[in-house]
């Protein structure tokens, strides 16, 4: 009997053989290895998407700067940030989709033993420039965010860093990257959808970004801003051809997110009309960009009432140009650079030229970019209400208003510039059913997920910033 049992049990043990099935643990359908450049491309697409999308769940900045108004649903134009998970979608896109892929690209580059050292340095610098861009957006949107402890899956509760500290650090990182870009290596080639491997363009892009970052400090630390801006200004965009553009394709899912949400070929929804705030301004200025920005209603440009319901058919919509599937997205453009230089001159920074020259170039670049001619620009600039010397207000108002116009459809950039200049004067909706005490957000509150997943650190950050509310001004937004 005992013999039988022993035989039986040993037979069982022999048949136990999962150890020979080790490939069961390997996913047969997904790779564990991929080239670094593929992550670089993916991250740039994700970055362009989050900046460009008009999806009400993610990006409502066109509303906050009153370029657009909504037709039916009024939560977002009335600054409700909890009805949808808007903060989480921005946060997640930047951290998980953009920065995580950039970090993976870096990791793979660094581990690549066959790549020549100078090429590696160059490519890492390209990745770094995009990462600085992403951090810039995060920090200027939320304020304090996880930075030094971020991007580490082993730390599920990363502490938040002070936004000014992060800002200073990314500026330093940008300088290092700029140095590396000119060190003589080869960059990414066709994975570089911005410049197709043209490193001179990357240097200009990096410097233009630096100019933009530096100028944002002008109110809070003029001395530091001056140094950064003056250093950058020597090698920035000089032409629309330099623009950092993300070239969307016509087929989903690589089409422009505007088309995915607003083009009748993809969506039946009619959520937005153009706000009267911007249309009235452009009408008053006879702005030649109107046909490129807006549709007409009975031959007129007519804007909806911001913060209230608007019948879709009664008002202008964003133009067909902007909702084309392959309409490119701008990450940074020449017009913006000229506006920055105009502002720099006004602030007494040595960047060459006069404020008016830069202002004129900025507006001309914008008009030409959108489809107008230099003649249109000259006519426009000849108007006393546009002409730099006669346009109303101080330099902040002159530049602020024109930059707000030029940054049409670039909600998040327009919002940041508006926070810096406090021009044009925008007022929150009021009266009727509007809740009491509305104010235009000057930051975005932390995501609900941070409350449920990283609660202690979020609370500390909220306390450090003066409250996790949309009215808390960020460190650079002092005037």
């Amino acid at each position, binding site marked *: 009997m005992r013999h039988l049992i022993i035989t039986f049990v040993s037979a069982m043990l022999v048949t136990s053989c999962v150890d020979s099935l080790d490939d069961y643990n390997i996913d047969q359908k997904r790779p564990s290895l991929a080239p670094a450049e593929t992550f670089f491309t993916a991250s740039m697409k994700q970055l362009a998407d989050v900046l460009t999308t008009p999806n009400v769940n993610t990006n409502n900045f066109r509303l906050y700067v009153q370029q657009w108004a909504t037709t039916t649903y009024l*939560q977002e134009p009335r600054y409700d940030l909890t009805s949808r998970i808007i903060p989480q979608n921005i946060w997640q896109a930047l*951290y998980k989709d953009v920065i*995580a892929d950039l970090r993976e690209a870096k990791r793979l580059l660094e581990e690549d033993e066959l790549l020549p050292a100078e090429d590696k340095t160059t490519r890492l610098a390209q990745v770094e420039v995009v990462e600085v861009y992403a951090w810039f957006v995060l920090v200027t949107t939320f304020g304090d965010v996880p930075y030094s402890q971020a*991007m580490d899956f082993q730390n*599920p509760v990363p502490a938040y860093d002070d936004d000014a500290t992060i800002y200073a650090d990314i500026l330093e990182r940008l300088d290092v990257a700029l140095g590396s870009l000119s060190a003589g290596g080869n960059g990414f080639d066709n994975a570089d959808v911005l410049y197709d491997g043209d490193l001179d363009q990357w240097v200009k892009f990096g410097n233009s970004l630096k100019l933009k970052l530096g100028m944002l400090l002008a109110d809070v630390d003029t001395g530091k801003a001056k140094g950064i801006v003056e250093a950058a200004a020597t090698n920035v965009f000089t032409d629309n051809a330099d623009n950092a553009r993300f070239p969307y394709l016509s087929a989903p899912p690589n089409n422009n997110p505007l088309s995915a949400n607003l083009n009748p070929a993809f969506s039946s*929804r009619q959520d937005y009309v153009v706000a009267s705030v911007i249309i009235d301004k452009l009408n008053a200025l006879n702005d030649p960009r109107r046909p490129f920005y807006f549709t007409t209603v009975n031959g007129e440009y007519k804007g909806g009432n911001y913060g209230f319901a608007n019948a879709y058919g009664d008002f202008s919509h964003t133009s067909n140009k902007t909702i084309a599937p392959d309409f490119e997205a701008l990450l940074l453009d020449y017009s913006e650079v000229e506006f920055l230089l105009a502002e720099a001159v006004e602030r007494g920074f040595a960047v060459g030229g006069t404020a008016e020259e830069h202002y004129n170039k900025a507006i001309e670049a914008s008009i030409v970019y959108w489809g107008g001619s230099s003649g249109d620009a000259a006519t426009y600039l000849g108007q006393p209400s546009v002409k730099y010397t006669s346009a109303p207000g101080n330099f902040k108002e002159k530049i602020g208003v024109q930059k707000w116009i030029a940054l049409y459809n670039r909600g998040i950039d327009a919002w940041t510039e508006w926070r810096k200049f406090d021009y044009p004067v925008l007022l929150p909706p009021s009266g009727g059913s509007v809740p009491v005490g509305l104010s235009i957000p000057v930051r975005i509150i932390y995501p609900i997920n941070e409350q449920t997943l990283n609660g202690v650190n979020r609370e500390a950050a909220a306390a450090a910033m003066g409250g996790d509310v949309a009215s808390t001004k960020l460190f650079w937004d002092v005037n």
Partner: protein
Amino acid sequence: MKKILLLLLVTILSVPVLAQETNVSGRVTDDADGAPLPGVNVVVKGTTNGTVTDSDGRYSLTVPSSSSTLVFSFIGLVTQEVEVGGRQSIDVPMKSDITQLNEVVVTALGIERKRNELPYAAQQVSGDAITTTRNSNFVNALSGKVAGIDIKTNNNLGGSTNVVIRGYKSITGNNQALFVIDGVPVSNANNNSVQQRNGGTGVDYGNAAADINPDNIASINVLKGAAATALYGSRAANGVVMITTKKGKKDAFSVAVNSGVTFGVIDRTTYAKYQREYGAGYGSGFYNADLGQGVGPVVQFDADASFGSQFDPNLMVYHWDALDPFSPNYQQMRPWVGAKNDPSEFFETAVTSNQNVTLMGGSDKTVFKLAYTRVDDKGVLPNSKLEKDLVNFSASYDVTDRLTVGASANYSRITGIGRYGTGYNGNNPNQQFRQWWQVNVDIKEQKDAYFRNRQNISWNWPSATGGTPPIYSDNPYWTRYENYANDSRDHYFGYMTMTYKITDWMEAIGRVAFDATTDFQEERVAVGSAGVRFGVDPTIAPPNVPSFYSRFDQSYSETNYDLLLNFNKKLSESFSLTGLLGTNLRRTRLSSMKAATNGGLVIPKLYSLSNSISPMQAPLEQYVRVGVDGIFANANLGYKEMLFLDLSARQDKSTTLPEDDNSYFYFSTSAGFVFSKVLTAPWLTFGKARVNYAEVGNDPVPLSLYDVYDKPTAFGSIAMFSLPNTKNNPQLVAERTKSIEAGIEAEFLEGRVGFDFTWYQSNSFDQAIPVNLTSATGYVSRFVNSGEVENKGIEISAFATPVESQNFSWTLGLTFARNRNKVVSLYSDAVTNVQLSDVINPLQGSVTTNAAVGYPYGVLKGTNFVFTNGQPTVNSQGRYIATASSAEIIGDPNPDWLGGITNTLNYKNIKFNFLIDIRHGGDIFSLDQWYGEGTGLYPHTAGLNELGVPKRSPVAEGGGIILPGVKEDGSQNDIRAANEDGTGTVFGYPNSPPRAWYVYDGSYVKLREVALTYSLPSSLIENLRPLKGIDISLVGRNLWIIDKNMEYSDPEETLSSGNSTNGYQSGAYPAVKTYGFNVKFNF
């Protein structure tokens, strides 16, 4: 030898002794199928004079007088007393007794044990109890019948059922009970999309347990605790529903035919009710346009709300059908009045036809069973249909005295058309009906509008002058007839087994069991529809698509190879030993592909992948294999049938663990004490106390060890790869559940009253699960071994037979279960909360479900009221103030307790039974109310306020609403909040009131089942040979919700089975009352 003795006994007893003695003979049969019952004890009451029935169920007995009473008894059957009453022939049908403690129950691995030997909780339910009300999903019929099993049915046609035993144990892993049929584990997988399971777009395809033919079930045994399931290994950590199918009997042949039809209508108390005073719009007013009869008021077609102008029968306006050229109202103005037919008229009468034939029989060496069932299920939604064909075959053959071989083969094919869309989804008509609707729209007119030309003529034109497609909502009939899903599932399972009796106390069993499903699902959005958020990639939020087609193909198989040595030996006069030694090899393989068109369809109504406007994106492929090898042993030592000690141990090796550390060991130890053996009292029939401790290990889900990349669609010719959302973990170890259980069961007064009480506690440790992370880590989730979840509770089941006489009996069954659940710790001390609801596909309404340390599993979080002196606080506009934080706990979806009361009344041939099913507690957030009150659909958003002024009049005119609560200074609220329009309303989403306001108590008391069965008397049947019995039943299910606190919906309604949306309703379907009849013929 026994036979000879028996024969001798019969002969001796048959000899007439005294003149007044008479001889009585007859036949004892099984009441259920008319089969003969051998071995039944027949005793003259008050004497030792008796006999047993022969193999044909026949007996013959001499009784002392014609007024004697015969007692018929047999283990597992209801003992019957029959007065002889001068008769010489007495045939007795015997009923099985589900309350008997001596019954044989089927335990883990299909091992039969006497109930008194079991040292752990197991509750058995007979097949009859399951099939009484002809529910085509037998799982739903378990509700209220077994203590400790929480069944949440949804009201979907063939929708998935959540089956959780003794509480949620795994934080994000599987919490569903394992289903085992005749020892074959069968898949209960839910193949619904990630989006569907998280409240987004999708269709509920149900889970595979619904494929089991209820007419094939002999009994169901629910093994609840780890001690009972330890032998099954890892996958049984959540309890096991063991199903034993009907088997043929030797030397008998029977045919049973069941034929039933049920009808279902919606329970209007579980559906939206509509205010009838104000029509379309977010505020008063109409568009003005000339739609045929001159410029006039035009309904705001594009406003998906009913906060518009007050109805006025004297006001002529253009309604939506003025733009429909084929409508009789084309270009016509009609009075501005509410709809005659509201959306509840959209629901049709459900019809289910259930036809079954079962053949069973055997010779002296073989038994077999062959059954076929056909179910046609038409749902309450238009164009919804399920068809099931189920074939079951099993047979066994005694090759020699020692060797028996057996096999079973089962095949089912389920095809569905138009299964219901669920959640926040344009293809779920409840999204428009409950959330975004105009109460001036008559649903029957929408029906006519669609059917005239089968066009998408919706009430929701994009502008005052029409246009296509509709802006938000399709014509709901278009949705049902054009944008439907269809699917099929082929399910095969069966086994081959060989049993060899080595000695009279030991047998070896070899068994190969196989379970396989092939699923095919097609989803579509027709050209001309309002966009629906549809996609195939679970890692990104789905895009809005104008038209769409997707197909999903999946094949799944599981094979189990078992080798068992079974012992059953009497060691001495006092000691007995039963036990087993075995191995199990399990291999599963899942292969699937989901592909979809991109950018819409070129040719309308052609649903093929090649009909894609843009080039198709890469399909989503899965290939997942698992291998688990286990060895196990069990011994049950008995002492004088009084003390039992049970020990089990198992070691598993799993491929889902890291190769160098892939085995894990666990055990159970249990003791039972039949105290009625020592404590003899006339009133105590049986009593047993039991206690056990067990551990069960569990392996991680497959492919969670090594990192892989996502591959987004290439950017033109430029390849892109991206990090996945979830970080895998090569250091995962097996998780473990430790449980302790104690119980007492007893029967009194000759089995007329009894109860079974169990206390348990289980703690699950080191769960190998993906936990959500802040995306500041670069991922949204990561596999870790996480924390501890504790469940403890009590279960009581009790029965009583208050009345029992020859013609009338009344039995009462009761179940009660209370589970307390707590998340004790998570994977790191710094982590106090894990969000359960998906991060990528979040729940609408900004609420989350969570595992929070120190709180019950699954708590709902969102904004709460701001309380002042315990009262909700309002702001200066009279609206409730919400907390700034969305991480306030606003609800606990776990019920406080569950209960069921079964009543069975027998009067002669008539049996009446009903079941009351109770759920107490369990919170639910209603997205339907959140949106639907905000759009002014529900009655309390209109009507008069306490001044007698319409709530929707301006506050200056005495309108508006004073919400109960206090002002910020703590004084009683007297601020009249505006409720004039859909942007200023106090109700619902528009001004983001506290989410806690939309959390409801999910308690209910339901009259779950009612059945009246009439068995034709044998005197009638005599003339209908070969018929042996006819039972006619009238049945009803869910006929009456006796009590509930959710005004407009069924608190039981869920989105899907799983963890993430427990306590969340969106686009909820109404409960369906079903009633019908069934006829059962036995041959």
